[in-house]
């Protein structure tokens, strides 16, 4: 295999142009769409944010975690409860949700990073289920249990109520921030350390990487991003209940990464949008979603382990050796 990176300046130019076009499309999107499509877009983009969060853990450190639903719940309930009890403004609540999400994830990860691989995956799954059942049953009096909590619509400057378009732009901004975080992380010593953890722990430790510390960091980043996504989504929906983070919500980001391409920012976004829009696209066939998710996961793992974006890059773009890293196939 004698691959080389194509001329740096050329490919950088190409990528910048691509990003510029995408940003432009994203910005003008609300003007050309209708409310139903906006709904889809918001769902899909929130899913993309969750997937980007997971990507840091799975795509960079190589550790699957099934805690996405839990992180989402922490953020959502934080916003809802703060609003209900303290009547603090949304901005404050969102910040608090991010911090709270980070703290809880940090506490959880201090114990769980002893585990690796499947044990970590199931440990984080247990975490998520614990949050789900405590919220749904255990702390019913605080959280309203299955009935959930109503949230007030967001009021902006000039006393106008936030529209879907506002939320759309907010979410796009958060998504862009997450993409930026992933991008710069990937190109830094910490990002390289995370990739090393995924490939060879002994060598990584021998060259100064405190593995537990960076796994915790990856989980915390995942937690914070998940909490922020949850907070914004819940405020948009105007309502929170355990419905929003049922068991499948822990799997959809993982599925999104497999479909899009593990370790790949574009893959995370594309996969995230696709997988999270899917149930709403299948009008009337909602009951089939679990089955279809299962089939998609199996098909991709068997035939397209690099994911859509990964395969495309491999064949056509052919850029950068690192993009050909196939976490899923362990190549």
């Amino acid at each position: 295999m004698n691959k080389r990176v194509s001329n740096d300046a050329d490919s950088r130019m190409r990528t910048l142009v691509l990003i510029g076009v995408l940003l432009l499309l994203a910005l003008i999107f609300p003007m050309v769409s209708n409310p139903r499509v906006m709904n889809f877009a918001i769902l899909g983009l929130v899913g993309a944010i969750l997937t980007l969060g997971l990507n840091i853990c799975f795509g960079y450190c190589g550790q699957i975690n099934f805690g996405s639903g839990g992180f989402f719940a922490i953020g959502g309930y934080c916003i809802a409860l703060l609003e209900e009890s303290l009547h603090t403004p949304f901005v404050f609540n969102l910040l608090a949700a991010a911090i709270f999400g980070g703290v809880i994830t940090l506490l959880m990860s201090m114990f769980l990073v002893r585990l690796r691989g499947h044990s970590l995956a199931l440990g984080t799954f247990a975490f998520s289920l614990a949050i789900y059942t405590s919220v749904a049953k255990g702390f019913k009096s605080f959280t309203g249990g299955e009935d959930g909590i109503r949230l007030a619509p967001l009021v902006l400057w000039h006393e106008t109520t936030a529209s879907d378009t506002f939320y759309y732009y907010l979410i796009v901004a958060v998504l862009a921030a997450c993409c930026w975080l992933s991008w710069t992380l990937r190109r830094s010593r910490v990002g390289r350390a995370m990739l090393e953890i995924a490939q060879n722990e002994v060598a990584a430790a021998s060259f100064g990487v405190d593995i537990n510390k960076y796994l915790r960091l990856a989980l915390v980043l995942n937690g914070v991003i998940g909490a922020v996504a949850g907070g914004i989504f819940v405020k948009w929906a105007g309502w929170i209940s355990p419905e929003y983070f049922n068991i499948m919500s822990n799997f959809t980001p993982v599925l999104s990464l497999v479909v899009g391409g593990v370790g790949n920012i574009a893959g995370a976004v594309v996969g995230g949008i696709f997988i999270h829009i899917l149930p709403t696209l299948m009008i009337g066939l909602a009951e089939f979603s679990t089955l279809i998710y299962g089939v998609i996961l199996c098909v991709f793992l068997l035939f397209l382990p690099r994911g859509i974006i990964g395969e495309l890059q491999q064949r056509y773009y052919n850029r950068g050796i690192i993009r050909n890293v196939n976490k899923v196939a362990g190549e």
Partner: protein
Amino acid sequence: MMSLLRIESISKNFGGLQALSDISLEVKEGSISALIGPNGSGKTTLFHVISKIIPHDSGKIFFAEERIDHLPAYRITGRGIARTFQIVSLFREASVWENVASGAFSRTKAEILPILFRLPSMRSEEKQIKERTMESLGFLGIEDLADRPAGMLPIGQQRLIELARGLVSDPKLLLLDEPLSGLNPRESDLLQEKIIEIRNRGITILFVEHEMKSVMRLAERIAVLNFGKKIAEGSPHEIRNDPQVIEVYLGKEVGIA
């Protein structure tokens, strides 16, 4: 010359097998020393104990007169010890550049916040990392390979990459575990030249080798292990004539001459 690495009475038992028995050793600063012995004598185990990949049962290790055996593995490089591995341990899916750059991790410190905001401190660190990596690659003559995936390359080049990675960490002591194994004569000679050059730059070297000619040629002091015990230590001449050593190696095809 002061003693850079001092090992005192290190023992390690693996569920009944005494891999290391009361090993004591000293490596003087600025020297090239060798650790030899038949297969299974404990040489790689000793390296693993020094770099804290496995814990030891008893004994102490001093580096530059400071005790290091209580440190976790990831702190050892920061003190100035770098190593290569008997079975090449590169990051197979990463590029050669990323592999070698990983050596700089212990010498840099940008964490998540400077990275997130791409602060000048982080950017200048990255620049430094790039420079040192390319310098190290250039020193070993493999700068052309920088963008290739490391896992795909032949073993000769992989060993050079491991060495380059070790050098980037700016070590005072370099532990090389069978650096010449799997190399053809030309590659082996080249690497031996590089080892001497490295020592001349002021880096102390302790290496494990089976290939006796290179050991006799490079090493100023040799320690011999057998079944986890040190059976001899001295200059190449002394070792060559030590009756215990001769007996241990009797029957081997590669003679000590």
